């Protein structure tokens, strides 16, 4: 049984690895059947939308290509507050709020997006793994967007 402190540390680690663009590190926290989604609700269409939808291999491929892309310069920092943990038999569902801040090369920071993470994790012999992450964005005007999962 994972302690609450271990859950907090794990979620924080997953965000810091994305902040540092340590994609291999982030993927090492994901189970091989990991599912990643970015979702948003459109009040214009009155519809839910999926803006990114990848499994482990798909995410690995896309993250592997990021260095070849023209990407937003600077750094994202993901500020996470865990709101709820729901424990099942093996899995733990964690609902968090996040604010993603982008800091440009001149050191100017702006809010990129706010939303919630709906994470599912599992503790196995070899460690703790993310089974799924849904980043549900409230922010829908994302400026020039991003190649990197949020």
């Amino acid at each position, binding site marked *: 049984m994972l302690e609450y402190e271990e859950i907090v540390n794990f979620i924080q680690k997953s965000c810091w690895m994305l902040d540092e663009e340590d994609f291999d590190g982030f993927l090492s926290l994901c189970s091989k059947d990991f599912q990643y989604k970015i979702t948003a609700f459109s009040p214009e269409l009155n519809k839910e939308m999926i803006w990114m939808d990848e499994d482990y291999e798909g995410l690995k491929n896309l993250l592997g290509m990021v260095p070849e892309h023209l990407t937003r310069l600077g750094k994202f920092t993901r500020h996470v507050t865990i709101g709820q943990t729901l424990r099942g038999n093996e899995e733990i569902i964690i609902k968090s709020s996040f604010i993603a801040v982008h800091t440009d090369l001149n050191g100017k920071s702006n809010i990129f997006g706010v939303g919630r993470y709906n994470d599912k994790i599992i503790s196995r012999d070899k460690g703790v793994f993310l089974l799924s992450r849904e980043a549900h964005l409230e922010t829908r005007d994302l400026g*020039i967007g991003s190649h990197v999962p949020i």
Partner: protein
Amino acid sequence: MNYENTIASKRKSSLPDTHFVNGSVYTNKAIFQKEKEKIFFHTWHFICHESEVLRKYDFRTISFLGQPLIIIRGGDNKIRSFLNVCSHRGAKIIHAPSGNSKKLTCFYHLWSYNDRGDCISIPRENGYDNSNLKKNLCGLTELKTDVFMGMVFISFNEKIMPLNDFIGDSLSSFKNTLCSGKLEVFHYSKSTIKSNWKAWQETNLDLYHEWMHVLLRRTQINAGSMKDRKVQIMPNGHAVVGGLKAKYGSYKGINDRKTTKALPGLSSEDFFFVDLFPNFAILARGTAIRIDVVTPIDENTSLVEWRGLGIKDEDPKDRRLRWKHHNQYWGPFGRNVPEDAFAAEACGEGFINSASRYQIIAREENGTGQDDGMLRAWYKEWSKLTNVNINKP
């Protein structure tokens, strides 16, 4: 401009007048005012897709150049557009981006309007008896509205040419798809970018910029022959580009697309697009369609809206796949659109204080490959309407 740039001047002197654009075209406030008057408040503009107002009394509200608009499908199934401001104290009436209502009621003093814009209710109306103000004088201001292949266009110009004449044959390649009656908007996103609106539209007109996108280098430039591409310059500043097939499997992480999921009238590897003057582009990629429009907020800031079109009422698994196909290229976390927005903002930074004096639109490849002919044709129309010389504004 407060210093000479002789290197830039010398380079420019080698170019024909049609092959470069002076930088002040992007930044000058007076030119921007002319654009608003002579282009945006003059011609036709795409405003939404008919699926966004599918049922009777469905409405969408949109801000177009700071003008609050409401687009509503009436009880007679006709789509109309109005200024979304109350005739009484001028307040914006409907604030929700979408909804369904037979009656549009202003929150302030409860004046109400019907689906045809008529003022139908004024509380304690007899208070206006002495000033002879009657309900029939208080309707909403209606704009010219027409639908072409399922796309709703508006114009502020009462004397504008018919929409059919404005578009002509430019959208013929989309006819079997857009007129299938099977499409709906399934993706909507928007971004405020720090750049003149033309810098965004140029990303849709500048074929040469494919080199910026690693995804397009892999799936388009290196996947076929540039000579297969055909650029057609159409009347009224529009342009059609087709001829290349995409090879999606050439980029690691993007799978080949199955023909069975192609939209009506398309094959899964199709890639073609149409630019309608001044601010509209529609792109087909076999399994999904993107529509984008850019509208200026001011001369240095623009709003870009993207819509994705897919099949109505499709199986959730198919919808999920179509979202993926659309968003891998064109979503806010896609491989392409963030790069286009980066480019538009970088051009904005170059021009805003005149570090860049002009841009070059001089590629000639006989209407194939990465010819700049679309850019030149677009600026020819722009000059015609604004009466501004692109070289010496």
